[in-house]
Each structure stands twice: as C-alpha cells, then as structure tokens.
C-alpha cells in the first residue's frame, strides 16, 4: 500500500519525501478537524447531564 503510493509519487526521493510529509500532515488535519470531532461524541465522555439532552 505505502510502497504503491511511494512509486506513484513524482520526482526524486527528496521530492517524494516532501510530498509524503505534506500528505501525512493533510491527513492529520482532516482527522483532527472533521473526523475526530464527529467520532468523539459517540464515546461516553459527553454524558454529564441527568436528562440526556
């Protein structure tokens, strides 16, 4: 999987490493900004009220 991505990135090893780093950072951003805020309320830490509003 990662080998396949690596082979399909353009440029030499340095350019590829840079692009890979940018991709990883973009993925982390999307996770923290959109995916985790969606997933976190599914965990029980939000239930602090007695009437479940």
């Amino acid at each position, binding site marked *: *999987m*990662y*080998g396949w991505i690596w082979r399909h990135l353009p440029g030499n090893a340095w350019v590829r490493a840079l692009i890979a780093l940018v991709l990883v950072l973009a993925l*982390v951003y999307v*996770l*923290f900004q959109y995916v*985790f805020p969606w*997933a*976190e*309320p599914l*965990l*029980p*830490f*939000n*239930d*602090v*009220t*007695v*009437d*479940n*509003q």
Partner: protein
Amino acid sequence: MRAIVRTVSELCITVGALIVLFVAYVLFWTGVKADGLMSDQIDRLQQQWSQGGVHEPAGPGAAAGPAAPAPYRSGKAFAIMYIPRFGFTWNKPVLEGTGTDVLKKGLGHYARTAQLGGRGNFSVAGHRRTYGDPFKDFPELRPGDAVVLTDGTTWFTYRIDKGPYRTVPTDVEVIDPVPRMSGYTRPGRYLTLTTCEPEWGHSHRLIVWAHLDSTEPVEAGKPEALRR
C-alpha cells in the same frame, strides 16, 4: 502471498497510528480547544459587563428581587463560576443549555431550571473529563464548600450541603426545584451541579447540592469565599 502479508501489516500499523492520534485528540486536543473557548467566553462576558451591557436590564433603583428577569439566550454565556476547592484560579463560564456543543465551551445550565439566584434549583452540568476537564476534582467537593457565581451585577455565594451523591442518568428529580434525596424539604434558592461517574464512563452521575448563602453587589468587591 508476500503482498497480502505486507498489505495487512501496513493496515494494522495504520489503524494503530489512527488510534494513537484519536487518543491524543480526546485527551489533549479537546482540552486545548476548550481552554481557548472558555477563556474567550469569560473575556467576552467581562468585556460586556465592563461596558455596562449586563444581562438584566435592572437599573440601580430596581427593587431587590427583580421581577421575572429576561430569559437567558440559548448557547450564550451569562455567568462565571468560581469554586475555591478546585483552586483559586479555577473559573469557568456558564452557558445556557446542556447540549453537546454548549458543553464544549463551558458549563451548561439546564434550561428548564431556575435562574441564577432565583427561587428554585439553578442546575449546572459540566464535563468531568475531556474538553478542559472542568469538573475533574468533583469528588473532592465537601459540604460547606463555596460555589460562587457572578452575573456581572451580583456575587452569589452558594454553600454545598450534600454530595457528592452518586445516582443514575435517568434520575432527573435531582434537579427538581426541591431536589429529591438532597435533604431539602422546603422550596428555596438551591444549586445543583452534575457530572459523569465514573471518571471516563457514563453509567452514573455525580451530584452536589448547595443553597444560596449570601449575595453581594459586585461593587462591594469579591465575596469572602474568594478572598485568599
């Protein structure tokens, strides 16, 4: 064959990395975000109060015990809470409503309960863990502890009478005007705090009850409970 093994192991590593990231998000990043949001809310409130835009439009000549103050606006901060037991730097905004979004920005006031200082039961919920851990030390609360709130015009000092009391999530009677199991028998000016129990779980709730001990105008300076 080798390709399959490699792909499966890569997937395992990816899932592991995702879980670590998610734990970091829940434990650390929600706190960073919530601390920022909460201090924003407090700054905004204090700015609003210093400009004289206090929630209650009661003039200085208004009678003690204002008649039917305007309802709080949903999702908006209207008071700051101080609990000396949690440390002298502990202060959190109180917002109207107890929805998930509201509780990310501070403590939430149960919308159908009494107003601050009013007759009935002023009830507030807060996170025990995640989102800045506002009620992390909830089990440390003891009868006699002060819970101080201000709405910009008045300091309200509540004294805890009972708690922490452990109950189940469906026990809505703990925020009744005269809360069940609190030991109060007559209507009065009460305060209820709720959070989750156990610390990281949701099977139970922890409750404390307090009564309104004293009120002072903000011009009189900080109430005794907040003086070091």
